[in-house]
């Protein structure tokens, strides 16, 4: 098992990113990207949540500690949240997460918050492609291989 993974590594790093997509805007945006046949890499594993404010910082950390190289949180643009204010709370939680990762030396560049509306299929594709490129440059998440966690 391990050897095949190591082999994949030596052949080049393949980033894996977890994406949290809010049901009402960003998930619909991702769907639109799909039906518009835009190129969205398979490296992202989308997880649908009802609202960006559902993303407890601990969910972000769970993904990072259990093998993700990056985590993307998306939601409706400020002012457009289906639940009115969820994304404002999400932004605060994200800022908190960002600061704590920074304090711990845990590479805050591995997490990203972006607003994507239901009509922004192209923006969704662009955000994902751009983020995966950034992660590729950062290289594998050291937490993936750290054996003392």
């Amino acid at each position, binding site marked *: 098992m391990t050897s095949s993974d190591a082999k994949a590594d030596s052949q080049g790093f393949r980033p894996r990113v977890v994406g949290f997509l809010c049901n009402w805007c960003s998930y619909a945006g991702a769907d639109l990207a799909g039906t518009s046949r835009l190129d969205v890499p398979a490296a992202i594993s989308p997880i649908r949540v009802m609202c960006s404010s559902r993303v407890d910082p601990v969910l972000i950390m769970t993904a990072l500690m259990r093998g993700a190289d990056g985590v993307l949180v998306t939601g409706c643009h400020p*002012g457009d949240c289906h639940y009115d204010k969820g994304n404002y709370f999400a932004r605060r939680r994200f800022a908190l997460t960002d600061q704590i990762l920074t*304090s711990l030396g845990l590479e805050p560049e591995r997490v990203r918050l972006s607003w994507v509306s239901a009509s922004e299929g192209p923006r969704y594709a662009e955000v994902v492609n751009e983020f995966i490129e950034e992660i590729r440059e950062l290289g594998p998440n050291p937490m993936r291989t750290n054996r003392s966690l």
Partner: protein
Amino acid sequence: MTATITIDKPLDEGVRTLLRSMLEKGTVRAVLTLRRLEDGGGVAHCLVTDPAALAEAVPLLPVMPSQGGQVLSHLTQEEPFKEPVAAVVRPCEARAFVELMKRNQAFGDNLVLISPECPGVFPVQRVSGDPMDDDIDAYWRSTSEGKGADGLRPVCTGCELFEPIGVDMTLRLVGRSDLDKVLTVRLDTQRAEDMVKDLGLGKAKEDGKDPKGLEALRSARAKGRADLRAELDFTGEDMAEFSRTFGKCISCHACSKVCPICYCQMCYFEARAAAAGPAWWRNDLKRKGATRAPPGTVFFHVGRLLHMSISCVACGMCEDVCPVDIPVARIFKKVGEAAQEVFEYVPGRDPKEEIPIKTFVEDELHEVER
């Protein structure tokens, strides 16, 4: 103008006098204070209604066997006190209590808070260890000179919030040369002034100038805080320092049990959701070929930081109880303060101030949006 009274007994004796007369005159129905237990078993927070039981009270003994904010929350989480209760707690205990009120874990009604300018506490092990008498003499000598004593909890040496915030009475201790003769009590609220008026403990005077020693301790603590921050740095490569530090953890979770802010009856990290099932360790093994069993030791600490460090009052309880000497409180203080600074938040400063993640401003934090 703030009023002050002077009680002509020093330290613990002075506070006992104050508490006793409040009980006897019926100003309060009960008091909460540290007290030596009758069987010699130790020192604990006790609720007292019998004035005679105050003979064993040691309100200023420099230890914190449990966090007073947590104790008060346990007493009031179901319903508020129905009659006035006076509690002698340290400033970080009072601040923890305020955080717990904001988190709907406590009621502050009818609670009269009395708090010292806090010179710090010794690690909790000292309560059951060697007699502390010599150290305590030295402790009060340092306090009257405005210096920190030796051997305190490490976080106390970097505590800049040692002067109580939002309490009814402040016991003025730091930098006072008359510490061994009298107790100076500042009355911070109208309620405190009204209560003290009838006690016959002397007339309230206008509060005098701050003693030089108080200023000296303020600077010493600012320096101590900078030293603590410099001493722990996790921002190096590959989280090596961080995993080395928490790698020692035996997952007893004592740190969260004694933490006043960790109030959850069922901690997320002990719940099934976090139980390290086969999906977790199989996946870990696939990637790493070796993993801690069960996995999740360090995850617990990052998770706790993410969940509660915004309200960490840096009391030091967690570090005292850690059996493997991880500097838990120093880490939580440093990481927590960095997070608090993002929102210009000081835990426990003001009961009306919302916890940052329970509120927002529409036009803010654009630097984290991409």
